Each structure stands twice: as C-alpha cells, then as structure tokens.
C-alpha cells in the first residue's frame, strides 16, 4: 500500500494540541489516530442512510409546521423523501398510501397535526436490570 504525506490546513491549534496529547497517552502516532478516525467516520457514514432520511423529513416538518397546522389540523400527514405525500382523515387511509409508495422508504413521518404532543413518561427500575 502506498503511503502518502497529507498536509491539513486551518486546523484549530487547541484541537491539535488535545489530539497530540491523547495520542501520546495511548501510545499512538498522529497518522495512526488519523487512520482510526477516518475508518470510524466511514463506517458510521455507511450505517446511517436512514438517519439522513430522518433528518430530511424532519427538516421538512420543522420548516413547514405552521403551514401544516393551518391546512391540515386534525388530519394525518405523511412525509417522506423530504416532501409531503398527503393528508388523510384516518390511519387506514394513510396506511394505504404508504403501501402504494415505490420505492418503499425506510423512514417516513406520520403525525396527526395539532393532536400529537410530546410527552414525558417514566420507566422505573425492574426491567432495567435484565
């Protein structure tokens, strides 16, 4: 394998100092740390396509929330691919719309506009132990 020399510009001094210190503590060279970081980043990128879709759909929802509430209050809206697929009076109709989508998305937002709320629950001890 050819090994090249890479120059990194505009790196923050403090970040570099911390990186060098951490590498020294672990007995690694900077190139070993860089290689490990790159591998980790590439692996995470491969594992997170659904997260990207989640982000895109949530971005659409958040930037259009007021408009959705104005137009579709009390109805189910289905968002996928970063766009509104439709608004439905009941869950069954929304489900039918999902079944006809091609290609099938891995992630979609389905919410009853103005009715779904953020809740706080509790999860006590028992099952945490097993």
């Amino acid at each position: 394998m050819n090994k090249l020399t890479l120059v990194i510009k505009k790196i923050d001094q403090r970040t570099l100092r911390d990186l060098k210190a951490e590498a020294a503590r672990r007995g690694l060279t900077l190139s070993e740390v860089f290689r490990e970081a790159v591998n980790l980043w590439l692996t995470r990128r491969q594992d997170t396509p659904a997260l990207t879709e989640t982000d895109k759909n949530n971005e659409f929802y958040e930037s259009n929330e007021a408009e959705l509430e104005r137009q579709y209050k009390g109805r189910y809206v289905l968002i996928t691919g970063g766009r509104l697929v439709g608004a439905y009076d009941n869950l069954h109709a929304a489900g039918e719309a999902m079944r006809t989508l091609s290609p099938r998305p891995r992630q979609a937002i389905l919410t009853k506009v103005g009715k779904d709320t953020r809740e706080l629950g509790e999860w006590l001890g028992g099952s945490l132990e097993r």
Partner: protein
Amino acid sequence: MAGRLFGTVNCYPHDRVACQPRLKIQLSNFAEERWQDATFAPIDTGFSGAVMLPNESYEFFMVGEQPRRLWKEYRTMTGLLQMRVARAFVQTEGGHMLETVVETPLFGTGKLLLGRAVLNSLSLLLDRGRVRLKSS
C-alpha cells in the same frame, strides 16, 4: 371491577429464565403490515409507555415515525432517556387491533417490553407463574 364475569382467552407461562410475566402479542406497522410472527413480550408495569423494542426491531416501524420534536422522554433512575417513537398496532389473542406506539431509545439498544399504556386496556390476571388473558 366487582361483579364482572371473565372468561380466560389464554394462559401464558412466565419466562423460565427471567421468571418474568409475558404476553403473546402481534405487532403491525401503521400500514397494517405484520412484524414477524406473534411474539412473547415481557410485561413491565414500571414502564408507562406502550411497547418498547430493540433498535433493530424498531426499524420495521420507522415508516410511521413521529416528528423528532415529539419524541418521548422517560424519567428513569439514572436520568432522562430520549426515545424514538413510531405509530403501530398491537393485537392480543382474541382481541381487536389497537392503535399504539412503539419506541426505542435514541441512544442504547432497547429491549422488548409491554408497558402500562397497553396493559391498561387489557384484563390480565397474574396467576402463580402464569398470565391469564381475560375477556369480559
């Protein structure tokens, strides 16, 4: 409720290893597509939510996920736990399909649990190592 008569729909022995009461359920995503075969879900009355799932199982339900800003948080003994939440249906033997939500921790692996939001709609009897599902 005093004076009501119940018939037993089915009996489920506790999980032998964990000695935990459990109930047979069938989960479907909001598009009414079934998630694998009916499964035994451990009953957890300390969990106020509906159904918790491991991360990898939750992926099947992500087609009906709630917006991120509505994802639920839980108070636990070690602090707040942020969940991802998706619409789903749950069905017990001999029962109707009930609209519910499934959840999994945003960080962490999650586990299969049936919480109070579902249990409160059922008639169950803990009967010496068995759970009896009742119909009235």
